[in-house]
């Protein structure tokens, strides 16, 4: 049975041996959930369990992806397995799109339905002075705040992310042409652009809190603004970590011109994060 298949094309499958990474991941998530839930309620074990769980999760991710990278470099993934990876990454990104859709949907609903309703005639009984306009913190959160406009940080950030898409594509072409030096350089540039983006975003948040009086608790505007940009920022962080891992592997000489799905998967993810940002830039900052 361990004989190679007679005809070169058939042995397409890869079935891994029993593995302990999944159960480790489950234990990690259990600790994290328990920790997070108790922490936000000010109870034991709170942050302790969360931190241990998180550390364990990071360990698991390193181990698991390390195994996968090893298997890939060991040439154990056939073309068919590669196609499976492509399908799965596409569907995973689709699920992420739907996650963002929930929050974009919330923003849309608030602007088109709930805020105008709150300001309509019947509601005078409850909120006599509320004027329906966007942005708003709602009828009862009276503190004044300044909304976040598109200039200049978000616009600069848009430019950063768009250029990072370009540099990433250059890196990809370099990989395909087997120009490893260019590849490594442009990977680095891509990551750098991502990190600078995050830096600007952090600065923007600080600015919002300290100068604009714009907080997570600033009614529906603050809620949607910070949750959308926050989850996006989180995804940029994840994407950047992916790219860093890929970069390190590039420098180790991993990937071949015709076989480098990990690279492409990370790149797809990065482009997805890019597109979400464009959506945010238009819907959150401009409209």
């Amino acid at each position, binding site marked *: *049975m*361990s004989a*190679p*298949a007679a005809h070169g094309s*058939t*042995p*397409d*499958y890869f*079935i*891994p*041996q*029993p*593995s302990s*990474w*999944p*159960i480790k*991941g*489950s234990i990690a*998530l*259990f600790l994290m*959930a*328990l920790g*997070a*839930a108790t922490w*936000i*309620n000010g*109870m034991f074990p709170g942050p302790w369990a969360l931190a241990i769980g998180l550390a364990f999760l990071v360990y698991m991710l390193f181990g*698991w992806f390390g195994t996968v990278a*090893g298997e890939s470099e*060991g040439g*154990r*993934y*056939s073309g*068919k397995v590669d196609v*499976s990876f492509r399908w*799965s990454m596409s*569907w995973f990104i*689709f*699920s992420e799109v*739907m*996650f963002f*859709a*929930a*929050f974009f*949907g*919330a923003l849309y*609903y*608030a602007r088109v339905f*709930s805020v105008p309703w*709150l300001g309509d005639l019947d509601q005078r009984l409850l909120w006599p002075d509320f004027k329906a306009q966007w942005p708003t*913190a*709602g*009828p*009862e959160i009276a503190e004044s705040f300044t909304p976040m406009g598109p200039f200049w940080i978000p616009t600069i950030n848009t430019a950063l992310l768009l250029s990072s898409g370009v540099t990433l594509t250059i890196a990809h072409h370099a990989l395909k042409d087997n120009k490893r030096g260019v590849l490594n350089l442009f990977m680095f540039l891509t990551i750098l652009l991502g990190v600078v983006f995050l830096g600007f975003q952090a600065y923007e948040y600080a600015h919002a809190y300290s100068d604009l009086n714009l907080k997570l*608790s600033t*009614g*529906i505007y*603050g*809620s949607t603004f910070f*949750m959308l940009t926050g989850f996006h920022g989180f995804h940029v962080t994840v994407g950047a970590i992916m790219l860093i891992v890929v970069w390190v592997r590039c420098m180790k000489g991993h990937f071949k011109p015709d076989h480098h799905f990990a690279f492409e998967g990370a790149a797809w993810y990065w482009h997805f994060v890019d597109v979400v940002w464009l959506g945010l830039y238009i819907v959150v900052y401009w409209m």
Partner: protein
Amino acid sequence: MSAVLDQHGHSHGHDDHHHGPPSGLMRWVMTTNHKDIGTLYLWFSFIMFLTGGVLALGIRMELFQPGLQYWNPEFFNQLTTMHGLIMVFGAIMPAFVGFANWLIPLQIGAPDMAFARMNNWSFWLLVPAAMLLVISFFVPGGATAAGWTLYAPLSTQMGLGMDLGIFAMHIMGASSIMGSINIVTTILNMRAPGMTLMKMPMFCWTWLITAYLLIAVMPVLAGAITMVLTDRHFGTSFFNAAGGGDPVMYQHIFWFFGHPEVYIMILPAFGIISHVVPAFARKQLFGYASMVYATSSIAILSFIVWAHHMFTTGMPASGQLFFMYATMLIAVPTGVKVFNWIATMWKGSMTFETPMLFAVGFIFVFTMGGFTGLICAVTPIDIQIQDTYYVVAHFHYVLVAGSLFALFSGTYYWIPKWTGHMYDEGLGKLHFWASIIFFNITFFPMHFLGLAGMPRRIPDYATQFADFNAIASVGAFGFGLSQLIFLVVVLKAIKGGAKVGDKPWEGAEGLEWTVPSPAPYHTFETAPQVK
């Protein structure tokens, strides 16, 4: 085994030549075998079914007669909520994933799922999630009591139990998404040569579409409960009018997930029935192509009907009309399925072993549930019966007599393949008759209660409702006890019983019946050729 696997088996020092599973507990914890994982899913879901069932018995005990007997109202709400959550996320959904794991590779001629290791994680994520739910009963304030729909702002009031519930659902959602990605990929990429999509067994088709629904809506649920979490603890105002948000927005987001979710729980059931009916009618499935189109139409329509759960929230008339029309349309493709099954039976050569009994029972009783669904879809009528026991009756008809009966039917049908033994036919038939009779005793009277105006989720009621509640409670205990028969049948079939050959059912068709029973640990290591 595939050459790729063992050619390069260097790094882990494992034995490349063992064919059977590793032994002991670790076999189950670390397994990457789709059959093992399928078995784990099935046992997990059965245990969850018993747990959820015991909670249901708690509900029915309190409702046996008017007045407060056993629980305080707060705990009663916890029972209702956890019953709903556990049945939906713990029992029915994982059971179908268990079937998918066992059957999809066998039916499409693949050696395993596309991502065997991730498959293991999908299962083992359910266990911590279930533990979190169970733990939440014992924390100060108790489990979440906001209904399985977790409507805000009630869900922003609860204590730690609510947060544990939210995180449990996040984890279950992650499990579902990974499981679905695995299933989609397996079906799209790992079919044996010659098996085109339109030759694929119906069960795989229904799961392909279900998996797509899951990937589309589970993240939306995650978004909704994340907003509840931040409203609870981090000062956001998504569902708080004072901050410009809207409680009804939660319902829109939730039901955008929730309605497709109910089809997620029924489409694989349709798939199972589409195997059992032809097998026992000894006649090919009628209208294969229209079955595929009907399933797809149901899935597509399911995205534009969600607000039929919200007719009483006070949406504009145009909204009510749109959602009413869209909802009623779903009766058409569902009808096509029902008619196709009946046409399959027509002029067949039928026998009525337990799988077929459950399948016929399914068609009959599910259709009743479908009709009451249609009645709910008519906005003015729904405004009368929304949040009453009529709705409870409707969804138990489609979920218990629908999803659950299909699961039983499938289990009886495939258990010879899983265990290599024929189940005890006498006990199986007893299980069927006890189930269908007690089922109707339990849930039929609820239609009357609902029409008469008894709200759901209440621990006490007007004395005029007493008789039907008493009948329902008696039925519930009978139904619950009947399920122990099922447990006995399954255990007996695992332990022993008549040995069966590759294909114990005369009319069965499909690749799974070409391998020995019980199915060997590894199957289809070289892909079969499908003509």
